[in-house]
């Protein structure tokens, strides 16, 4: 692992693992199984895998929390910057490894941003002058200089995450590990964060190891991908090889544009939207200008609806709503939410949902999506306006764990609901022992477990930290609820998920509805609020999903 250039000897590998296995205390199955790898200094490595595949455990091993903090059994060897993780705890490894976790709120430990950034250096006994300089420099590098004098509890999720990264980097570690850092951010903040990491990687030479479910977001920045399955590394390859493997093994880890190319029979598989556009041009298809010109569905066209069930003109919808003959499941009429001595969160919002409708509520953080859902449920009273509901409105808030307050899952929702959540075999399990996806399903059944069916079901960011398999299961559940006659309204940042389940998209910004229409209209022509396939095809034909895009490409190629 060492390369000698005359008198200069450079360690090329920052992380070396040999036969590393690990089992958490009181667990039967190993979380890591015979992991052997070497990560180069200055590399950008993406950890890919489904929930429970061992990504987080590997990251926690790199920073020494496994085994020193969590306990358990370890076999094999892992060295980080030449330090054996067996012999050096997280405190010593912190000199070489900065760590950022998923939830920014619990990793920011001080009350002020400046104090938060100073803390790691104070632990290391740096002088006040050195601390002041390092804090200033890292704040400038990460673009958070204007936050230095803010209190940490006044920061948004994106700002908190940047502060957490700055705190991890302030002592200039050679390695930065991040566990789903974008899961709580909107698409804009998430993309900005990944490119910030890439810049740090390129300019400072910091090796980055990141675990993410939204692979399409990170893959363009990555040099290398490690795929994990049941704790074992099943693939260690460059991004393009990873995509070939992911497509060949079922596509659960493949990005949308990779699946688009695979379904359309195009090669090589693109690792980014830019490469996808280049690939389409190479195949004689000019995105936007050429594709879909002859097959683009027209608004209100029945055939188009058949091709993409969400493709309905919002003008048609407005006319239909204005006629007001259709029954309403839940509706907000001119809702205002004004906080005393604070901002106006909602401003004259009208939203009408009909039975069986599936609505994606989108917009950046702070746009008012969650507050609108709270109004629909009746958790808060509007300062002006009113809410009309045909029956009970169920609301699943962002943290499913908040709904689980008993010691056994059967006490949460009853036997029937357990079966719907796929937990019929584990009635006596403690809700805290469930995986994220299981908690999500159980919490959804908790809010649906009323005696009468709900007129509307509202979900607030249900796909945070959720892998593709679980997202598809949730799409199916939403479809079933809508088929049962409930209006389903989901606040989400996840454009791929919105395209998969919604037949209408409502885009909010700064407390007002700024667009309301069919997914094919809103998610195909947007900048950030568009799917990867739509961006690759430049919105051609209103195609959002890989399957629809591939059909479009095949028709073009045949023609």
């Amino acid at each position, binding site marked *: 692992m060492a390369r000698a250039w005359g008198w200069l000897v450079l360690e090329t590998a920052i992380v070396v693992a040999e036969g590393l296995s690990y089992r958490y205390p009181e667990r039967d199955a190993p979380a890591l199984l015979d992991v052997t790898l070497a990560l180069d200094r200055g590399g950008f490595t993406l950890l890919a895998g489904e929930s429970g595949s061992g990504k987080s455990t590997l990251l926690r091993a790199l920073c020494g929390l496994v085994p020193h903090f969590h306990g358990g059994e370890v076999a094999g060897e892992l060295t980080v910057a030449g330090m054996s993780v067996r012999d050096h705890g997280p405190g010593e490894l912190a000199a070489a490894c900065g760590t950022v976790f998923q939830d920014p709120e619990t990793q920011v430990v001080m009350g002020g941003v400046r104090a938060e950034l100073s803390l790691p250096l104070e*632990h290391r006994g740096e002088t006040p002058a050195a601390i002041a300089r390092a804090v200033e420099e890292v704040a400038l590098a990460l673009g958070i200089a204007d936050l230095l004098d803010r209190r940490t509890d006044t920061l948004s999720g994106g700002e908190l995450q940047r502060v957490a990264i700055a705190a991890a980097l302030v002592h200039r570690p050679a390695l930065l590990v991040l566990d789903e850092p974008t899961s709580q951010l909107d698409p804009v903040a998430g993309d900005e964060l990944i490119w910030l990491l890439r810049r740090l990687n390129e300019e400072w030479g910091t090796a980055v190891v990141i675990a993410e479910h939204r692979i399409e977001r990170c893959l363009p920045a990555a040099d290398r991908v490690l795929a994990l399955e049941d704790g074992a590394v099943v693939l260690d390859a460059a991004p393009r090889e990873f995509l070939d493997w992911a497509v060949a093994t079922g596509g659960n880890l493949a990005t949308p544009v990779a699946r688009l190319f695979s379904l359309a029979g195009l090669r090589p598989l693109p690792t980014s939207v830019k490469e996808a556009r280049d690939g389409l041009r190479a195949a004689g298809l000019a995105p936007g200008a050429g594709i879909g010109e002859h097959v683009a569905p027209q608004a209100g066209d029945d055939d188009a609806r058949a091709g993409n069930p969400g493709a309905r003109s919002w003008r048609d919808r407005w006319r239909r709503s204005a006629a007001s003959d259709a029954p309403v499941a839940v509706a907000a009429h001119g809702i205002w939410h004004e906080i005393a001595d604070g901002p106006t969160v909602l401003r004259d919002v009208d939203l009408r949902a009909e039975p069986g409708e599936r609505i994606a509520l989108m917009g950046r953080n702070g746009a008012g999506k969650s507050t609108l859902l709270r109004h629909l449920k009746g*958790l808060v009273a509007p300062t002006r306006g009113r809410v009309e509901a045909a029956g009970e409105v169920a609301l699943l808030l962002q943290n499913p764990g908040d709904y689980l307050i008993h010691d056994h899952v059967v006490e949460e929702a009853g036997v029937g609901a357990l079966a719907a959540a796929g937990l019929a075999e584990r009635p006596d399990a403690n809700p805290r022992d469930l995986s994220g996806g299981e908690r999500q399903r159980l919490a959804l059944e908790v809010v649906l477990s009323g005696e009468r069916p709900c007129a509307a079901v509202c979900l607030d960011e249900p796909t945070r930290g959720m892998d593709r398999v679980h997202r598809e299961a949730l799409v199916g559940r939403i479809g079933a609820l809508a088929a049962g006659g409930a209006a389903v309204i989901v606040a989400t940042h996840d454009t791929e998920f919105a395209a998969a389940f919604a037949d209408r998209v409502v885009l909010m910004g700064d407390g007002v509805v700024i667009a309301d229409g069919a997914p094919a209209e809103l998610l195909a022509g947007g900048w950030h609020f568009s799917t990867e396939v739509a961006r690759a095809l430049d919105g051609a034909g209103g195609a959002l999903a890989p399957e629809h895009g591939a059909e479009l490409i095949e028709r073009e190629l045949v023609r």
Partner: protein
Amino acid sequence: MSEPARRAPRRDLPIPAYRSGASPLHRARAGVTASLCLALALVCMLFADPLVLATAIAAVSAAGVAAGVGREIKRAALLSLPLVLLVAVVNPLVYREGDTLLVRGGEILGRRMDITLEALVAGGLAGLRVAAIVMAFGLFSACVDPDELLRLFRRFSYRSALTGALATRLVPVLARDALRMGDAARCRPTRPEPAEERGRTGRWARWRSSPGRRPASAAVVRVAVARAALSGALDRAVEVAAALEVRGYSVGGRPPRSREPWSRHDLRVAAAALAVASAAVACKLMGVGQVQVYPRIEMGVGPPEALLCAVVLIAAVALPFGGRGARLGVARA
């Protein structure tokens, strides 16, 4: 005509919390502002005289309003209310001393339940003292930066100070968790109990599935939420501990001393703290503000007490906030 706008109440935490501000109490170094708050608390601890206690409350309130944290002081006062009422009510029921009998009660468990004026007054004074101390600490919470306080104490006992600071910071985090869980509880619909569906046969299960049994009341759900929030606190603490570990907490040594020049705010607030503490200690030693409740109420109300009150009020309010110097921002002395 549109209906008049009602503003939605801000969802504030029910506890006083620090917010950075531009007042002299915020601008002064943490140790100095903390000293003033502690000096005011010391007054409350040393004296039971209602005039002195009322003055301390007035001084804390006035300093809070002048520092822009009046809302936090009000919140602290509300927070102290249950304890104040408890003390004020329990004292006359427990103590039978005093010559002035107000109510002759019957015997409960072999003990006469007489209520005397003196016990009533003693309860009221104790309640007033509790309120004043809680409000002084409310001022402390609202005006003293915990990060700076940690910096102050880290040279003496770094880990204890950090643990204390973290515990303080976890309080609002847990309060937010509890608010969220309360909202989630309000989203739970009423439903049939699971035990009857599962067909369990135990005594507990039979009670749960009995036909006359009502669904869980709001109070029961509230208790379950509180229990879950409490156990969630452990998870939160573990996460924060993990974050501390990866920031190098376990290898943290005693940091080097930093010397910053004293600002005019530091000097004025320190002078106020010194004046309040000195006056309180001196008056206590001279026997000013003595209160005797049993067997008869005797309390000194005269020029010495009035002088002590004037010193406390002027020192705590006029010294930090009065004059041109207080309005000169952060200019260094």
